[in-house]
Protein backbone atom coordinates (compact mmCIF):
# COMPACT_ATOMS: atom_id res chain seq x y z
CA UNK A 1 0.00 0.00 0.00
CA UNK A 2 1.42 3.31 -1.00
CA UNK A 3 0.28 6.58 0.34
CA UNK A 4 1.78 9.97 0.69
CA UNK A 5 2.37 10.13 4.38
CA UNK A 6 -0.01 12.65 5.77
CA UNK A 7 2.62 14.65 7.50
CA UNK A 8 2.14 18.40 7.39
CA UNK A 9 5.77 18.80 8.40
CA UNK A 10 6.66 17.91 4.87
CA UNK A 11 5.23 21.06 3.50
CA UNK A 12 5.47 23.59 6.25
CA UNK A 13 8.31 24.60 8.50
CA UNK A 14 11.03 23.78 6.02
CA UNK A 15 12.75 26.86 7.32
CA UNK A 16 12.65 25.88 10.95
CA UNK A 17 13.29 22.15 10.82
CA UNK A 18 16.27 20.22 9.52
CA UNK A 19 15.83 18.76 6.08
CA UNK A 20 16.05 15.03 5.53
CA UNK A 21 17.31 12.62 2.94
CA UNK A 22 14.05 12.95 1.06
CA UNK A 23 14.63 16.61 0.37
CA UNK A 24 18.08 15.95 -0.99
CA UNK A 25 16.69 13.12 -3.05
CA UNK A 26 14.10 15.52 -4.41
CA UNK A 27 16.77 17.93 -5.58
CA UNK A 28 18.67 14.97 -6.96
CA UNK A 29 15.55 13.81 -8.76
CA UNK A 30 15.06 17.21 -10.34
CA UNK A 31 18.64 17.23 -11.54
CA UNK A 32 18.30 13.67 -12.79
CA UNK A 33 15.11 14.31 -14.70
CA UNK A 34 16.43 17.54 -16.17
CA UNK A 35 19.49 15.65 -17.29
CA UNK A 36 17.49 12.81 -18.76
CA UNK A 37 15.30 15.26 -20.60
CA UNK A 38 18.38 17.09 -21.85
CA UNK A 39 19.60 13.80 -23.26
CA UNK A 40 16.22 13.18 -24.80
CA UNK A 41 15.55 16.57 -26.29
CA UNK A 42 18.85 18.18 -27.22
CA UNK A 43 20.07 17.59 -30.71
CA UNK A 44 23.49 18.94 -30.04
CA UNK A 45 25.80 16.11 -28.98
CA UNK A 46 27.41 18.36 -26.41
CA UNK A 47 23.99 19.15 -24.99
CA UNK A 48 23.47 15.44 -24.56
CA UNK A 49 26.79 15.30 -22.80
CA UNK A 50 25.70 18.05 -20.45
CA UNK A 51 22.56 16.06 -19.76
CA UNK A 52 24.71 13.11 -18.75
CA UNK A 53 26.65 15.32 -16.38
CA UNK A 54 23.41 16.46 -14.78
CA UNK A 55 22.20 12.89 -14.40
CA UNK A 56 25.45 11.85 -12.77
CA UNK A 57 25.22 14.79 -10.43
CA UNK A 58 21.72 13.91 -9.39
CA UNK A 59 22.93 10.42 -8.53
CA UNK A 60 25.93 11.86 -6.71
CA UNK A 61 23.77 14.07 -4.60
CA UNK A 62 21.78 11.03 -3.56
CA UNK A 63 24.95 9.20 -2.53
CA UNK A 64 26.01 12.15 -0.44
CA UNK A 65 22.58 12.37 1.15
CA UNK A 66 22.49 8.68 1.99
CA UNK A 67 25.84 8.98 3.68
CA UNK A 68 25.36 12.20 5.54
CA UNK A 69 25.05 11.93 9.32
CA UNK A 70 23.01 15.12 9.43
CA UNK A 71 20.19 13.78 7.33
CA UNK A 72 19.45 10.40 8.80
CA UNK A 73 20.74 8.90 11.96
CA UNK A 74 19.72 5.27 11.80
CA UNK A 75 21.90 2.26 11.20
CA UNK A 76 21.26 2.25 7.46
CA UNK A 77 23.37 5.31 6.96
CA UNK A 78 25.83 4.73 4.18
CA UNK A 79 28.44 6.69 6.06
CA UNK A 80 31.66 7.34 4.26
CA UNK A 81 30.76 4.81 1.60
CA UNK A 82 28.43 7.39 0.14
CA UNK A 83 31.18 9.94 -0.20
CA UNK A 84 33.57 7.39 -1.64
CA UNK A 85 31.01 6.34 -4.20
CA UNK A 86 30.46 9.96 -5.11
CA UNK A 87 34.19 10.40 -5.56
CA UNK A 88 34.34 7.47 -7.93
CA UNK A 89 31.41 8.83 -9.83
CA UNK A 90 33.08 12.20 -10.21
CA UNK A 91 36.30 10.65 -11.41
CA UNK A 92 34.58 8.35 -13.84
CA UNK A 93 32.44 11.24 -15.05
CA UNK A 94 35.59 13.11 -15.89
CA UNK A 95 36.86 10.13 -17.84
CA UNK A 96 33.52 9.68 -19.53
CA UNK A 97 33.44 13.32 -20.51
CA UNK A 98 36.87 13.05 -22.07
CA UNK A 99 35.93 10.03 -24.14
CA UNK A 100 32.53 11.39 -25.10
CA UNK A 101 34.08 14.66 -26.14
CA UNK A 102 36.59 12.81 -28.23
CA UNK A 103 33.80 10.88 -29.89
CA UNK A 104 31.82 14.05 -30.46
CA UNK A 105 34.79 15.80 -32.01
CA UNK A 106 35.51 12.81 -34.20
CA UNK A 107 31.88 12.76 -35.27
CA UNK A 108 32.13 16.42 -36.04
CA UNK A 109 35.23 15.84 -38.12
CA UNK A 110 33.66 13.02 -40.09
CA UNK A 111 30.16 14.33 -40.57
CA UNK A 112 30.71 18.05 -40.30
CA UNK A 113 27.79 18.14 -37.91
CA UNK A 114 27.16 17.78 -34.22
CA UNK A 115 23.52 16.82 -34.55
CA UNK A 116 22.90 13.48 -32.85
CA UNK A 117 19.88 12.88 -35.04
CA UNK A 118 22.28 12.51 -37.95
CA UNK A 119 24.12 9.82 -36.06
CA UNK A 120 21.58 7.14 -36.80
CA UNK A 121 23.60 4.80 -38.94
CA UNK A 122 23.11 2.07 -36.38
CA UNK A 123 19.41 1.97 -37.22
CA UNK A 124 18.21 -1.58 -37.48
Amino acid at each position, binding site marked *: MINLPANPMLF*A*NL*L*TEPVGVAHYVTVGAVLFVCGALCMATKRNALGVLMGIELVLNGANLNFIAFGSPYLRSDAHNLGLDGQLMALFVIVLAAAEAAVALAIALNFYNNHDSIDVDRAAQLRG
Partner: protein
Amino acid sequence: MAPFLLELELFGIRLCPWTWLAYTLAGLVHIALILNLVAVGALIFIWLERKISGRIQDRLGPTRVGGKFGWLQTLADGIKLLTKEDLMPEQADGFLFKIAPYVSFCASIGAFIAIPFAGGAYPWISQHLNAGVFFVLAVLGLEVFGVILAGYSSASKWSLFGAMREAAQVVSYEVPLGMCIVVPVLIAGSLDLVVIGDRQAGWFTNWLIFHDPFTFITFWVYFTCAIASVNRAPFDLAEAESELVAGFHTEYSGLRWSFFFMAEYGSMLSVSMLAAILFLGGWHGPIPVADLLGLQPENGFALGYLGQLLGATNVILKGTIGVCVMMWVRWTLPRLRIDQVMTTCLKYCTPIAAVMFLGATVWLFNWPGKNFFGLLDVPAAVYEISDGASGGEQIPSVVTPADRVAFEASTETKNKRENL
Protein backbone atom coordinates in the same frame (compact mmCIF):
# COMPACT_ATOMS: atom_id res chain seq x y z
CA MET B 1 14.94 47.64 19.95
CA ALA B 2 11.27 47.86 19.64
CA PRO B 3 9.54 44.86 21.17
CA PHE B 4 7.55 44.13 18.05
CA LEU B 5 10.71 43.10 16.29
CA LEU B 6 11.16 40.36 18.83
CA GLU B 7 7.72 39.08 17.99
CA LEU B 8 8.17 39.37 14.26
CA GLU B 9 6.73 36.37 12.51
CA LEU B 10 6.60 35.40 8.91
CA PHE B 11 4.85 32.26 7.61
CA GLY B 12 4.87 30.81 11.08
CA ILE B 13 8.57 31.33 11.60
CA ARG B 14 9.83 33.45 14.40
CA LEU B 15 12.46 35.73 13.01
CA CYS B 16 14.62 36.14 16.04
CA PRO B 17 16.23 39.44 15.11
CA TRP B 18 19.43 39.02 17.03
CA THR B 19 20.37 35.75 15.42
CA TRP B 20 20.04 36.70 11.85
CA LEU B 21 21.43 40.14 12.46
CA ALA B 22 24.49 38.55 14.01
CA TYR B 23 24.90 36.12 11.13
CA THR B 24 24.44 38.84 8.57
CA LEU B 25 26.86 41.17 10.31
CA ALA B 26 29.51 38.48 10.64
CA GLY B 27 29.14 37.61 7.00
CA LEU B 28 29.25 41.25 5.96
CA VAL B 29 32.41 41.90 7.92
CA HIS B 30 34.17 39.04 6.16
CA ILE B 31 32.91 40.12 2.79
CA ALA B 32 33.96 43.70 3.40
CA LEU B 33 37.43 42.70 4.48
CA ILE B 34 38.01 40.42 1.50
CA LEU B 35 36.55 42.87 -0.97
CA ASN B 36 38.75 45.58 0.42
CA LEU B 37 41.81 43.40 0.22
CA VAL B 38 41.17 42.60 -3.41
CA ALA B 39 40.12 46.07 -4.49
CA VAL B 40 42.76 48.01 -2.60
CA GLY B 41 45.29 45.34 -3.46
CA ALA B 42 44.50 45.77 -7.13
CA LEU B 43 44.85 49.51 -6.74
CA ILE B 44 48.31 49.16 -5.26
CA PHE B 45 49.43 46.38 -7.55
CA ILE B 46 48.58 48.31 -10.65
CA TRP B 47 50.61 51.21 -9.42
CA LEU B 48 53.35 48.81 -8.41
CA GLU B 49 53.31 47.16 -11.79
CA ARG B 50 53.77 50.51 -13.51
CA LYS B 51 56.56 51.45 -11.25
CA ILE B 52 58.32 48.10 -11.56
CA SER B 53 57.93 47.95 -15.31
CA GLY B 54 59.21 51.48 -15.47
CA ARG B 55 62.29 50.65 -13.48
CA ILE B 56 62.93 47.51 -15.50
CA GLN B 57 62.68 49.49 -18.70
CA ASP B 58 64.84 52.22 -17.24
CA ARG B 59 62.16 54.86 -16.89
CA LEU B 60 60.24 56.36 -14.02
CA GLY B 61 56.65 55.21 -14.35
CA PRO B 62 53.88 57.48 -13.06
CA THR B 63 55.19 60.55 -11.31
CA ARG B 64 52.47 63.17 -11.27
CA VAL B 65 49.13 62.25 -9.78
CA GLY B 66 49.21 62.36 -5.99
CA GLY B 67 52.78 63.39 -5.37
CA LYS B 68 56.21 62.52 -6.50
CA PHE B 69 55.67 58.79 -6.90
CA GLY B 70 52.28 59.03 -8.57
CA TRP B 71 50.53 57.27 -5.70
CA LEU B 72 47.09 58.13 -6.92
CA GLN B 73 47.61 57.32 -10.56
CA THR B 74 45.51 54.15 -10.33
CA LEU B 75 42.70 55.95 -8.59
CA ALA B 76 42.61 58.51 -11.34
CA ASP B 77 42.56 55.74 -13.90
CA GLY B 78 39.74 54.07 -12.00
CA ILE B 79 37.67 57.24 -12.16
CA LYS B 80 38.39 57.45 -15.85
CA LEU B 81 37.19 53.87 -16.32
CA LEU B 82 34.05 54.57 -14.35
CA THR B 83 33.10 57.43 -16.60
CA LYS B 84 33.83 55.56 -19.82
CA GLU B 85 31.00 54.48 -22.03
CA ASP B 86 29.92 50.90 -21.55
CA LEU B 87 30.02 49.39 -25.02
CA MET B 88 28.61 46.10 -26.19
CA PRO B 89 29.01 44.69 -29.71
CA GLU B 90 25.77 44.48 -31.60
CA GLN B 91 26.03 40.75 -32.24
CA ALA B 92 27.09 39.91 -28.73
CA ASP B 93 25.13 37.54 -26.53
CA GLY B 94 24.01 40.26 -24.14
CA PHE B 95 23.33 38.23 -21.07
CA LEU B 96 26.59 36.31 -21.11
CA PHE B 97 28.54 39.38 -22.17
CA LYS B 98 27.32 41.31 -19.18
CA ILE B 99 27.72 38.56 -16.64
CA ALA B 100 31.16 37.29 -17.67
CA PRO B 101 33.29 39.90 -15.79
CA TYR B 102 31.37 39.25 -12.62
CA VAL B 103 31.90 35.50 -12.92
CA SER B 104 35.61 36.09 -13.12
CA PHE B 105 35.59 38.56 -10.28
CA CYS B 106 33.47 36.35 -8.03
CA ALA B 107 35.72 33.37 -8.59
CA SER B 108 38.75 35.48 -7.83
CA ILE B 109 37.25 36.77 -4.60
CA GLY B 110 35.73 33.41 -3.71
CA ALA B 111 39.17 31.89 -3.33
CA PHE B 112 39.83 34.20 -0.40
CA ILE B 113 36.96 32.65 1.52
CA ALA B 114 39.14 29.69 2.45
CA ILE B 115 42.55 31.35 2.60
CA PRO B 116 43.70 31.88 6.18
CA PHE B 117 45.49 35.08 7.10
CA ALA B 118 46.68 33.81 10.42
CA GLY B 119 46.60 30.42 12.07
CA GLY B 120 46.87 29.03 15.52
CA ALA B 121 43.97 28.10 17.70
CA TYR B 122 41.90 31.04 16.45
CA PRO B 123 42.71 31.28 12.76
CA TRP B 124 41.85 34.38 10.81
CA ILE B 125 39.86 32.87 8.04
CA SER B 126 36.36 33.59 6.87
CA GLN B 127 35.41 29.95 6.42
CA HIS B 128 37.60 27.31 7.98
CA LEU B 129 37.28 24.44 5.54
CA ASN B 130 38.53 20.96 6.09
CA ALA B 131 39.59 20.69 2.48
CA GLY B 132 40.71 24.27 2.11
CA VAL B 133 43.49 23.72 -0.43
CA PHE B 134 41.16 21.98 -2.79
CA PHE B 135 38.53 24.61 -2.36
CA VAL B 136 40.91 27.42 -3.24
CA LEU B 137 42.22 25.53 -6.21
CA ALA B 138 38.70 24.71 -7.37
CA VAL B 139 37.38 28.23 -7.07
CA LEU B 140 40.40 29.63 -8.82
CA GLY B 141 39.68 27.18 -11.61
CA LEU B 142 36.26 28.78 -12.00
CA GLU B 143 37.80 32.05 -13.04
CA VAL B 144 38.41 30.63 -16.46
CA PHE B 145 34.66 30.50 -17.04
CA GLY B 146 34.42 34.25 -16.97
CA VAL B 147 37.14 34.44 -19.56
CA ILE B 148 35.57 31.79 -21.75
CA LEU B 149 32.14 33.34 -21.58
CA ALA B 150 33.59 36.76 -22.34
CA GLY B 151 35.43 35.34 -25.28
CA TYR B 152 32.43 33.57 -26.68
CA SER B 153 29.82 36.21 -26.06
CA SER B 154 31.81 39.08 -27.56
CA ALA B 155 31.11 37.78 -31.05
CA SER B 156 34.65 38.65 -32.03
CA LYS B 157 37.18 36.21 -33.36
CA TRP B 158 40.00 37.71 -31.32
CA SER B 159 38.00 37.13 -28.18
CA LEU B 160 37.10 33.60 -29.17
CA PHE B 161 40.71 32.73 -29.92
CA GLY B 162 41.80 34.17 -26.63
CA ALA B 163 39.15 32.24 -24.75
CA MET B 164 40.04 28.97 -26.45
CA ARG B 165 43.65 29.40 -25.62
CA GLU B 166 42.71 30.14 -22.07
CA ALA B 167 40.52 27.06 -21.82
CA ALA B 168 43.22 24.79 -23.17
CA GLN B 169 45.87 26.35 -21.03
CA VAL B 170 43.96 26.31 -17.77
CA VAL B 171 42.77 22.74 -18.15
CA SER B 172 46.29 21.63 -18.87
CA TYR B 173 47.97 23.56 -16.13
CA GLU B 174 45.61 22.38 -13.44
CA VAL B 175 47.27 18.98 -13.61
CA PRO B 176 50.81 19.99 -12.58
CA LEU B 177 49.40 22.62 -10.25
CA GLY B 178 47.40 20.03 -8.39
CA MET B 179 50.39 17.69 -8.26
CA CYS B 180 52.57 20.41 -6.81
CA ILE B 181 50.01 21.23 -4.17
CA VAL B 182 49.78 17.61 -3.16
CA VAL B 183 53.41 17.66 -2.01
CA PRO B 184 52.99 20.03 0.96
CA VAL B 185 49.65 18.40 1.67
CA LEU B 186 51.45 15.09 1.87
CA ILE B 187 54.04 16.44 4.26
CA ALA B 188 51.59 18.25 6.50
CA GLY B 189 49.18 15.34 6.39
CA SER B 190 46.18 17.57 5.93
CA LEU B 191 44.20 19.48 3.32
CA ASP B 192 43.47 22.13 5.87
CA LEU B 193 45.37 25.29 5.01
CA VAL B 194 45.56 26.32 8.67
CA VAL B 195 47.18 23.02 9.59
CA ILE B 196 49.59 23.24 6.68
CA GLY B 197 50.56 26.74 7.70
CA ASP B 198 51.06 25.86 11.33
CA ARG B 199 53.14 22.88 10.34
CA GLN B 200 55.79 25.49 9.41
CA ALA B 201 55.79 27.35 12.72
CA GLY B 202 59.10 28.47 14.14
CA TRP B 203 62.20 29.40 12.26
CA PHE B 204 62.40 29.54 8.50
CA THR B 205 64.05 26.15 8.57
CA ASN B 206 60.65 24.71 9.11
CA TRP B 207 59.29 26.13 5.87
CA LEU B 208 58.20 23.41 3.55
CA ILE B 209 60.20 24.83 0.68
CA PHE B 210 63.24 23.86 2.69
CA HIS B 211 61.83 20.53 3.79
CA ASP B 212 63.79 18.56 1.25
CA PRO B 213 65.29 19.10 -2.21
CA PHE B 214 62.11 17.91 -3.86
CA THR B 215 59.88 20.45 -2.18
CA PHE B 216 62.37 23.11 -3.13
CA ILE B 217 61.97 22.27 -6.80
CA THR B 218 58.26 21.75 -6.39
CA PHE B 219 57.89 25.31 -5.22
CA TRP B 220 59.34 26.69 -8.45
CA VAL B 221 57.20 24.37 -10.55
CA TYR B 222 54.20 25.49 -8.58
CA PHE B 223 55.04 29.12 -9.10
CA THR B 224 55.45 28.60 -12.83
CA CYS B 225 52.13 26.85 -13.08
CA ALA B 226 50.51 29.49 -10.91
CA ILE B 227 51.67 32.19 -13.28
CA ALA B 228 50.25 30.20 -16.15
CA SER B 229 46.97 29.57 -14.42
CA VAL B 230 46.39 33.26 -13.75
CA ASN B 231 47.35 34.17 -17.30
CA ARG B 232 50.33 36.31 -16.61
CA ALA B 233 53.23 36.72 -18.96
CA PRO B 234 54.98 34.76 -20.28
CA PHE B 235 51.83 32.65 -20.41
CA ASP B 236 49.33 35.42 -21.21
CA LEU B 237 48.30 33.90 -24.50
CA ALA B 238 44.67 34.70 -23.85
CA GLU B 239 45.27 38.41 -24.15
CA ALA B 240 48.30 38.48 -26.36
CA GLU B 241 48.06 42.01 -27.65
CA SER B 242 50.55 41.50 -30.43
CA GLU B 243 48.37 38.90 -32.13
CA LEU B 244 44.87 39.06 -30.65
CA VAL B 245 44.38 42.81 -30.11
CA ALA B 246 43.52 42.27 -26.43
CA GLY B 247 42.35 38.69 -26.41
CA PHE B 248 39.26 37.80 -24.53
CA HIS B 249 38.54 41.33 -23.31
CA THR B 250 38.92 43.02 -26.67
CA GLU B 251 35.32 44.17 -26.72
CA TYR B 252 35.10 45.27 -23.11
CA SER B 253 35.35 48.80 -21.88
CA GLY B 254 34.86 50.82 -18.77
CA LEU B 255 33.78 49.22 -15.56
CA ARG B 256 33.33 45.73 -16.94
CA TRP B 257 36.86 45.72 -18.24
CA SER B 258 38.14 46.89 -14.88
CA PHE B 259 36.40 43.96 -13.25
CA PHE B 260 38.51 41.63 -15.35
CA PHE B 261 41.51 43.58 -14.30
CA MET B 262 40.66 43.36 -10.65
CA ALA B 263 39.98 39.65 -11.00
CA GLU B 264 43.40 39.17 -12.53
CA TYR B 265 45.18 40.96 -9.74
CA GLY B 266 43.00 39.29 -7.14
CA SER B 267 43.89 35.85 -8.38
CA MET B 268 47.55 36.80 -8.64
CA LEU B 269 47.45 37.69 -4.99
CA SER B 270 45.58 34.56 -4.05
CA VAL B 271 47.95 32.15 -5.82
CA SER B 272 50.87 33.99 -4.30
CA MET B 273 49.35 33.77 -0.86
CA LEU B 274 48.65 30.13 -1.46
CA ALA B 275 52.30 29.66 -2.36
CA ALA B 276 53.26 31.49 0.81
CA ILE B 277 51.06 29.30 2.96
CA LEU B 278 52.00 26.05 1.27
CA PHE B 279 55.71 26.57 0.96
CA LEU B 280 56.90 29.77 2.58
CA GLY B 281 55.75 29.38 6.12
CA GLY B 282 52.46 31.23 5.79
CA TRP B 283 51.96 33.61 8.65
CA HIS B 284 55.21 32.54 10.32
CA GLY B 285 58.04 34.88 9.56
CA PRO B 286 61.58 33.67 8.94
CA ILE B 287 62.23 34.55 12.55
CA PRO B 288 59.50 33.62 15.01
CA VAL B 289 59.10 37.14 16.34
CA ALA B 290 55.66 36.54 17.70
CA ASP B 291 56.76 33.48 19.64
CA LEU B 292 59.84 35.17 20.97
CA LEU B 293 57.87 38.19 22.17
CA GLY B 294 55.15 35.99 23.60
CA LEU B 295 52.42 37.32 21.33
CA GLN B 296 50.26 34.29 21.88
CA PRO B 297 46.57 33.94 22.64
CA GLU B 298 47.45 32.25 25.90
CA ASN B 299 48.96 35.50 27.14
CA GLY B 300 45.79 37.48 26.74
CA PHE B 301 43.55 38.71 24.02
CA ALA B 302 45.49 41.85 23.11
CA LEU B 303 48.82 40.11 22.74
CA GLY B 304 47.28 37.26 20.83
CA TYR B 305 45.56 39.71 18.53
CA LEU B 306 48.84 41.50 17.94
CA GLY B 307 50.48 38.21 17.10
CA GLN B 308 47.76 37.35 14.64
CA LEU B 309 48.05 40.81 13.08
CA LEU B 310 51.73 40.22 12.64
CA GLY B 311 50.95 36.90 11.02
CA ALA B 312 48.46 38.46 8.64
CA THR B 313 51.00 41.10 7.69
CA ASN B 314 53.47 38.32 7.08
CA VAL B 315 51.17 36.47 4.73
CA ILE B 316 50.13 39.52 2.81
CA LEU B 317 53.73 40.67 2.53
CA LYS B 318 54.81 37.29 1.21
CA GLY B 319 51.93 37.35 -1.21
CA THR B 320 52.92 40.82 -2.37
CA ILE B 321 56.46 39.69 -2.91
CA GLY B 322 55.10 36.83 -4.98
CA VAL B 323 53.09 39.27 -7.05
CA CYS B 324 56.14 41.46 -7.51
CA VAL B 325 58.09 38.47 -8.76
CA MET B 326 55.33 37.80 -11.25
CA MET B 327 55.63 41.38 -12.47
CA TRP B 328 59.31 41.04 -12.67
CA VAL B 329 58.91 37.93 -14.76
CA ARG B 330 56.38 39.62 -16.98
CA TRP B 331 58.57 42.48 -17.90
CA THR B 332 61.69 40.46 -18.45
CA LEU B 333 60.63 37.32 -20.28
CA PRO B 334 59.19 37.16 -23.81
CA ARG B 335 55.81 35.59 -24.34
CA LEU B 336 55.73 31.92 -25.33
CA ARG B 337 53.88 30.53 -28.32
CA ILE B 338 50.83 28.41 -27.59
CA ASP B 339 52.64 25.20 -28.51
CA GLN B 340 55.48 26.18 -26.26
CA VAL B 341 53.03 26.83 -23.48
CA MET B 342 51.56 23.38 -23.87
CA THR B 343 54.99 21.82 -24.14
CA THR B 344 56.06 23.54 -20.97
CA CYS B 345 53.07 22.16 -19.20
CA LEU B 346 52.85 18.64 -20.52
CA LYS B 347 56.48 17.84 -21.24
CA TYR B 348 58.18 19.65 -18.41
CA CYS B 349 55.99 20.75 -15.54
CA THR B 350 53.85 17.63 -15.26
CA PRO B 351 56.69 15.08 -15.30
CA ILE B 352 58.78 17.19 -12.99
CA ALA B 353 55.91 17.58 -10.58
CA ALA B 354 55.22 13.86 -10.69
CA VAL B 355 58.84 13.03 -9.98
CA MET B 356 58.93 15.57 -7.19
CA PHE B 357 55.84 14.04 -5.71
CA LEU B 358 57.39 10.60 -5.78
CA GLY B 359 60.66 11.93 -4.42
CA ALA B 360 58.99 13.77 -1.59
CA THR B 361 57.10 10.64 -0.69
CA VAL B 362 60.22 8.55 -0.60
CA TRP B 363 62.02 11.22 1.37
CA LEU B 364 59.23 11.36 3.86
CA PHE B 365 59.30 7.62 4.34
CA ASN B 366 63.03 7.54 4.83
CA TRP B 367 63.43 10.58 7.02
CA PRO B 368 60.17 11.11 8.76
CA GLY B 369 60.13 13.89 11.28
CA LYS B 370 63.13 15.62 9.74
CA ASN B 371 63.27 19.15 8.44
CA PHE B 372 65.56 21.39 6.44
CA PHE B 373 66.88 18.86 3.97
CA GLY B 374 66.80 16.23 6.63
CA LEU B 375 69.22 18.08 8.87
CA LEU B 376 66.92 19.11 11.73
CA ASP B 377 64.23 17.45 13.77
CA VAL B 378 60.74 18.72 13.43
CA PRO B 379 59.78 20.52 16.65
CA ALA B 380 57.48 18.48 18.82
CA ALA B 381 54.94 21.29 18.96
CA VAL B 382 54.24 20.96 15.26
CA TYR B 383 53.22 17.35 15.63
CA GLU B 384 50.88 18.24 18.39
CA ILE B 385 49.23 20.94 16.34
CA SER B 386 48.75 18.82 13.28
CA ASP B 387 47.48 15.90 15.32
CA GLY B 388 45.09 18.03 17.23
CA ALA B 389 43.75 19.60 14.10
CA SER B 390 43.17 16.42 12.18
CA GLY B 391 40.31 15.42 14.36
CA GLY B 392 42.16 13.86 17.25
CA GLU B 393 41.83 10.44 15.75
CA GLN B 394 44.52 7.83 16.18
CA ILE B 395 46.01 8.42 12.78
CA PRO B 396 49.58 9.56 12.53
CA SER B 397 49.92 12.57 10.30
CA VAL B 398 52.42 10.63 8.26
CA VAL B 399 51.54 7.04 7.61
CA THR B 400 54.65 4.93 7.69
CA PRO B 401 54.56 1.46 6.19
CA ALA B 402 54.91 -0.01 9.63
CA ASP B 403 51.91 1.95 10.84
CA ARG B 404 49.79 0.76 7.99
CA VAL B 405 50.69 -2.85 8.44
CA ALA B 406 49.84 -2.61 12.08
CA PHE B 407 46.55 -0.90 11.34
CA GLU B 408 45.51 -3.36 8.71
CA ALA B 409 46.47 -6.25 10.92
CA SER B 410 44.28 -4.93 13.68
CA THR B 411 41.30 -4.45 11.38
CA GLU B 412 41.83 -7.82 9.79
CA THR B 413 41.89 -9.61 13.08
CA LYS B 414 38.80 -7.73 14.06
CA ASN B 415 37.10 -8.73 10.84
CA LYS B 416 38.06 -12.31 11.34
CA ARG B 417 36.80 -12.26 14.84
CA GLU B 418 33.48 -10.97 13.67
CA ASN B 419 33.29 -13.50 10.90
CA LEU B 420 33.81 -16.28 13.34
